[in-house]
């Protein structure tokens, strides 16, 4: 069995560790590229959202490299994601690929089904082996989140443009090669060191513009799909922050309630005066997230979603009021394969200008008319 799964940011690092430590052969799809998008868009329904098109492209390219089993997450709720795996299986079957699809439905639909599907993939691996694999994957997952987080802090103060991004790629490659928990921890420490030294030990900007990112998790975590929004903002001198990460998702969705990160709980609670209903995906968290960022004194928030994303469109319409009530600007980016880079760059630059000018105004002790300061 040669297992593959879709690409989403750097999630392939812990996922590969999980399967390979459990003795399963993994065939990674090549990093998403223009070819991936072209293949995916050609064979997907036009109004499906962008992540589905990329998944299709990834699976086609993985099949070309010899994969025979696709692992895909399932889901329940209003968002269309829960139906992706089924649609993808049918599309690939129609195209004549002989691929088996294993859908991992969320634990809330029943642990027994999930366990039996995991056994199906990891056949010969015992329980202790599985636990060991899960532990390595979990350590690597945390390490990826940490490396990305350090890069977001280091980027605005780098001396030569792109140095931090290059160091981050090296750090991730080191981590990917680590075969044990000890080696992974060493790689993380060395990687963070590399990223900081890549900045050229700059003079610290005491107060960089700070922007929080909320939105649909795939588009937020996948730099290829969001056209490197984090890098672009960082290279404009902005310190970017996000609560969404793989580790956060695992704690919120795969582990018992007591493991749910404090911020995730807070976001749902804070969203309730504006949106007191589960709309699917991270719609509620996007609304609550903007309030959290406003409380933390961030300058602005960028909401990222795939074009036609229902949960985030609901959140977007509510965010107008959140933005007004808390005097925090929100820029919504709805992206897909038709998005032009120039338009995205122009919007980001204009947004950063807006945030900088607001700061000057705040420093002068003026607030906008019609806005109650926090």
């Amino acid at each position, binding site marked *: 069995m040669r297992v593959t799964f879709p690409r989403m940011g750097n999630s392939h690092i812990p996922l590969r560790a999980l399967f390979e430590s459990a003795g399963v052969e993994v065939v990674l799809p*090549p*990093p998403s*590229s*223009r*070819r*991936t998008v072209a293949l995916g868009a050609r064979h997907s329904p036009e109004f499906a959202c962008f992540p589905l098109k990329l998944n299709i492209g990834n699976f086609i390219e993985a099949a070309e490299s010899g994969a025979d089993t696709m692992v895909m997450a399932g889901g329940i709720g209003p968002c269309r994601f829960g139906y992706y795996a089924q649609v993808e299986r049918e599309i690939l079957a129609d195209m004549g690929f002989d691929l088996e699809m294993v859908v991992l439905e969320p634990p809330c639909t029943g642990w027994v089904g999930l366990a039996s599907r995991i056994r199906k993939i990891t056949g010969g691996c015992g329980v202790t082996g599985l636990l060991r694999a899960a532990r390595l994957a979990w350590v690597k997952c945390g390490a990826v989140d940490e490396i990305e987080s350090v890069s977001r802090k280091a980027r605005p103060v780098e001396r030569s*443009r*792109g140095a931090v*991004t290059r160091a981050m790629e090296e750090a991730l490659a080191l981590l990917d090669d680590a075969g044990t928990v000890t080696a992974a921890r060493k790689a993380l420490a060395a990687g963070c060191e590399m990223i900081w030294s890549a900045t050229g030990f700059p003079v610290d900007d005491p107060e960089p513009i700070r922007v929080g990112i909320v939105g649909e998790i795939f588009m937020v975590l996948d730099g290829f799909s969001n056209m*490197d929004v984090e890098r672009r903002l960082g290279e404009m001198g902005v310190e970017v922050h996000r609560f969404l990460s793989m580790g956060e998702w695992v704690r919120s969705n795969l582990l018992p309630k007591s493991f749910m990160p404090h911020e995730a709980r807070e976001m749902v609670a804070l969203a309730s005066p504006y949106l007191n209903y589960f709309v699917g995906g991270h719609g509620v968290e996007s609304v609550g997230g903007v309030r959290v960022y406003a409380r933390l004194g961030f300058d602005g928030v960028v909401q990222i979603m795939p074009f036609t994303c229902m949960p985030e469109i609901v959140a977007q*319409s509510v965010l*107008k009021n959140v933005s007004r009530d808390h005097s925090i*600007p929100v820029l919504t980016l*709805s992206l897909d394969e038709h998005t032009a880079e*120039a*338009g995205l*760059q*122009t*919007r980001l*630059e*204009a*947004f950063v*200008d*807006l945030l900088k*000018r*607001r700061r000057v*105004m705040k420093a002068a002790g*003026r607030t*906008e*008319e*019609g*806005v109650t300061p926090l």
Partner: protein
Amino acid sequence: MSLYLGIDVGSVSTDVALIDPRNGLVAGAYLMTRGQPIRVVQEALDEIAAAATVPHEISGVGTTGSGRHLAAAIVGADAVKNEITAHAVAALARVPDARTVIEIGGQDSKIIILRDGVVVDFAMNSVCAAGTGSFLDRQASRLGIPIEEFGTIALRSKNPVRIAGRCAVFAESDMIHKQQVGHTVEDIVWGLCQALVRNYLNNVGKGKEIRPPVVFQGGVAANAGMKKAFEEALGMEVIVPGEHKLMGAIGAAILAREARPKPATSFKGFDVARQRFVSGGFECSGCSNMCEVTEIRSGDSLVARWGGRCGKWSS
């Protein structure tokens, strides 16, 4: 006298403005880009140099518009800014208490919300360009009307026709249908202005609080029919500044002045109009992204190079 130069290279037109330290316009030039941004920037520089009759020195240069990076590489710029910031700054220089800016250019339409002299929100068209200059140009030429007269013809209408305005192509189909059933040209043209304003307010202006004073800039602001349609739809006066065609360039010039170039401006001088620039490009084969990299050369030296996600080609 020390002056500041602003260059706005857009899809349809390129405008250049020379301003004094108090933001007053000393000279301006407005040319069609014709898909040849380098050539046009050079022509515009020639025009400005000829128009600026007072003895002066250039103390700063700013570029904006979709060709801002290209123009900056050619002339040497101190400020390279997006069109939204440039238009907001220019609007405030001419109407200090402006609270809404409507800017419609060749292919982009924008709305900028200002409060107390600061941008608080903006939006740009993303899925539709109905109502922008290129589309109006096309309709004018199809109807055999010079674009300069489009607005005045619209104002003569007695009996507007409702044109479907969700999509430019369907708006055109609907116009043709209305012609075939015998409506007059002025009624159709006025109906089109109303449809395009509806489209703008529903797409670009959706959810934005439009408060007066409203300033209307960009090439389309020259169209009296569009101005009147905005005034009727919004129920308030819409101000079109006298220099509406040059506002992007004026904004860029003001931003260059604010940037206070140190130790001196990067401007290469008006002689760049004589220089020969050659643009070329290649597809990078370093990875599966197959990025299209473009470069500008002058003689043996590389002036600028961009494109490519990884940054290895950025000069």
